[in-house]
C-alpha cells in the first residue's frame, strides 16, 4: 500500500519534472530563435572614417562570449533596404527615389549585432557605448527584458515545484522503507545477531527503494512520451494561428534523448537516497 503511494507520488513528481523539462527545453529553444532576431544597432559619429568603423566592428566581434553575429550595413545599403521595404511592390516609385542621388540616410551606416543570450544584451551595450566613435545604440530592451523575465519565471517556478515534489517523494519512500523495516524488525534483529553484515541487511531495502523509483519514473515517462506527441498535434491543429510560432517546438525524440536518462536516473536516485538514509537510521543493532 505504501509502495503504491510512493510510486504514485514519485510518478507525479517525475511527470511534472518531465512536463517542466519539456516546457523549459522548448521555451529555451524558442528564446534562442527570438534572441537571434533581437539585435542591437550601433551608429557612428558623423564623418567617422571607414578605418575607425572597421576598428569598432572588430572590437565588437572580439566579444565572442556574447556576440554571435555582427553585420556592417553601409549608408547606401541602409537607403536601399529602406526603399525596398517602403516601396514594396511599386518598383517604378522605388526607381524614382533611387534616382535621387542625395541619400537622406547618409549618416545611417551601422552595425547590426546579435547576441547569444538575451540577458547579456545590456552588458554588451555598455561595452559598445565605451568604444570611441560610437554615437548611438538602439536596442530592443523591452523585448529582451520580457523574454528574460518569462524565462526566469518558468525556471524558478519549475525548480521550486520539482524541489517540493522531490522532497515529498523522498519522504514517502522513506516512510515505505520505515514500514518495511518495522514489519521485519525481528528478522533484521536476528540477522544482525547471527552475523549479517550491514550491507546484507540494507541491500533489499535499498533495492526496493530503487525499484520504487524506477517504476515511479518509468510510468510517467511513458505517459509523457505519448502525451507530448498528442499535445503538439493538438496545438498545431486547433491553433493554426500559432503554427508559425510553434514550428520552434522540439520533436519528442529530441526531448526524450535527455528526459529519459535524466528521469530514470532521478527516479532511481530518489529511491536510493530515500531508502539508504532511512535504513541507515534504523540499523543500529
Amino acid at each position: 500500500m505504501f509502495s503504491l503511494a510512493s510510486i504514485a507520488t514519485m510518478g507525479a513528481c517525475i511527470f511534472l519534472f518531465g512536463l517542466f523539462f519539456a516546457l523549459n527545453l522548448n521555451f529555451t529553444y524558442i528564446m534562442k530563435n527570438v534572441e537571434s532576431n533581437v539585435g542591437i544597432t550601433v551608429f557612428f559619429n558623423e564623418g567617422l572614417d571607414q578605418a575607425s568603423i572597421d576598428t569598432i566592428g572588430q572590437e565588437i566581434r572580439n566579444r565572442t562570449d556574447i556576440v554571435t553575429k555582427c553585420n556592417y550595413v553601409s549608408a547606401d545599403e541602409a537607403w536601399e533596404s529602406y526603399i525596398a521595404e517602403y516601396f514594396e511592390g511599386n518598383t517604378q516609385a522605388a526607381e524614382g527615389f533611387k534616382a535621387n542621388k542625395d541619400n537622406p540616410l547618409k549618416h545611417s551606416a551601422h552595425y547590426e549585432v546579435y547576441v547569444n543570450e538575451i540577458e547579456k544584451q545590456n552588458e554588451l551595450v555598455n561595452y559598445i557605448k565605451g568604444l570611441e566613435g560610437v554615437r548611438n545604440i538602439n536596442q530592443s530592451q523591452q523585448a529582451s527584458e520580457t523574454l528574460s523575465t518569462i524565462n526566469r519565471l518558468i525556471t524558478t517556478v519549475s525548480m521550486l515545484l520539482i524541489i517540493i515534489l522531490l522532497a515529498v517523494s523522498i519522504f514517502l519512500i522513506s516512510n515505505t522503507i520505515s514500514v518495511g523495516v518495522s514489519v521485519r524488525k525481528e528478522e533484521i534483529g536476528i540477522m544482525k545477531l547471527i552475523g549479517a553484515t550491514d550491507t546484507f541487511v540494507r541491500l533489499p531495502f535499498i533495492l526496493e527503494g530503487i525499484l520504487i523509483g524506477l517504476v515511479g519514473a518509468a510510468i510517467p515517462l511513458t505517459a509523457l512520451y505519448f502525451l507530448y506527441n498528442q499535445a503538439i498535434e493538438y496545438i498545431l491543429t486547433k491553433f493554426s494561428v500559432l503554427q508559425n510560432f510553434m514550428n520552434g517546438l522540439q520533436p519528442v525524440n529530441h526531448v526524450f534523448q535527455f528526459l529519459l536518462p535524466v528521469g530514470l536516473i532521478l527516479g532511481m536516485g530518489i529511491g536510493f537516497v530515500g531508502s539508504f538514509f532511512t535504513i541507515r537510521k534504523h540499523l543500529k543493532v
Partner: protein
Amino acid sequence: MITLDSVSKSYEKGKPAIHNISLHIDKGEFVFVVGDSGSGKSTLIKLLLKELNPSSGTIFVNGKILNKLTRRQISKYRRSLGVVFQDFRLLKDRNVYENVAFSQRVIEKPNWMIKKRVPEVLTLVGLADKYRSNPKELSGGEQQRVALARALVNRPKILLADEPTGNLDPKNSNEIMKMLEEISECGTTVLVVTHNKGIVNVMKKRVIHLRKGVIISDEKEGIYVEN
C-alpha cells in the same frame, strides 16, 4: 576463550547492571550464569554478543578485544557465536528448514553447503522429519530445538543461551539441556543463563552466581542456592 577484566556496565540514570566483573571461561567449558531478575545476567549476554559496550573494563573473546571491534568486525565476530533465546525468535513466515537455512544464508554460505548442513543439524536435534513444518505447528520444546539447530548450523565456537528452558516444561527442558551438554562435549563453549534451579543442580557444572551486578560465587561443580 572468554575473559572479562573488571567489566562494568551502567545504563543511563541507573545503578550499574554489572559492576566490576572479572571472569575467565575456557574452551569447551559448560557454564551456568544464575541469579534473580535484575542481577545482570542478560546484560552479560548482551555484552558478549556485542549488543552493548561496557562502560569500563575489557572483554576478550577468542583473542579479540570486543571493545575495539569495528561494525564490520562485529558481524564477523558474531558468526563465531551461536545464540538461543527464551522466546526462540523463529521467523514465523518460514518453515523449519528455512529458519535453520536462514542462519547460513545471512552469512552468505553457498547453496550446496546449506543443503548439506541443514538436514545434518536437524537430524542432530531430532527434527529431521519436521523440516517442512511451520514453527507455529510445533510445541515449545520443538521450537527451541529449531532455535538450537539454527544456532549450531554454522558450527559456532561459543554457544550463548539466554533462558533456553524458560518457556519449556521439565521434560523438554531436560532434553534441551542434554543437547547443550553434548554440544559442549564436542568442544563448543556453552554459556547458559538461567534461573532454573532444578536443572542447574542436577547437571553439576560450573555455576557463576550474580546478584545486583556482582559475582557472589563461582564454583566448579556448583549448585544454585537462592538467598
